[in-house]
């Protein structure tokens, strides 16, 4: 069982890295954006299969931080400044959402 899990993980990661860095033709920035998208795929795995509610809250929090980096890379790729504005607003809303989720997880009301 343990060997099978390690084999599945190594196969998935190796095939993704090979397809991204050696088969796919494109500029380096697009390849880095692809790595970030794969990372958000793993985070979504943790959101779906997380055993406890705290796992899901942690995963959503980390997804917000990943999306900030992804938006910054998009802004660098298209040479547009307004992507960073979207990233700042996303950081603010993600922080407030994390605090609210933590309060609900603790068993308190929002106006406590």
């Amino acid at each position, binding site marked *: 069982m343990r060997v099978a899990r390690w084999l599945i993980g190594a196969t998935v990661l190796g095939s993704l890295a090979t397809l991204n860095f050696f088969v796919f033709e494109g500029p380096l920035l697009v390849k880095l954006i692809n790595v970030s998208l794969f990372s958000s795929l793993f985070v979504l795995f943790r959101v779906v299969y997380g055993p406890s509610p*705290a796992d899901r809250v942690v995963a959503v929090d980390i997804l917000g931080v990943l999306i900030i980096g992804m938006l910054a890379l998009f802004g*660098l790729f298209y040479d547009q400044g307004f992507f960073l504005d979207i990233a700042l607003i996303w950081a603010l809303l993600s922080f407030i959402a*994390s605090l609210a989720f*933590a309060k609900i997880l603790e068993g308190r009301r929002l106006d406590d």
Partner: protein
Amino acid sequence: MTRQMIGMVFICVGIAFDFLGVLGLVRLPDVYTRLQAATKCVTFGTAGLLFGIFIIKGFTSFGFKALLGIAFVFFTSPVAAHAISRAAHRGRIPLAKESVVDLYEADGELKEE
């Protein structure tokens, strides 16, 4: 050109840290260990990425927005992580089987309710 190269190195290191943090989020056995790996690595990775963008763009509005993003991520992410871990411990989410000691429980923080 040199500035471009240094910025790209920072961006590559940041993406690598992001990926390792997310791998820790998938692999580790517990809420608290997952939170530790994910928060530290993702904060450092995203901050390095934004610092690389600041090096590439220089002192323009784009670069200053990147610096503002660094400050914001550094201030807000540890606060959110601390709130989530405290709420998880108060919500009686169990630790992993391999864990040895629980000092927060031993301090008697939970008995006052």
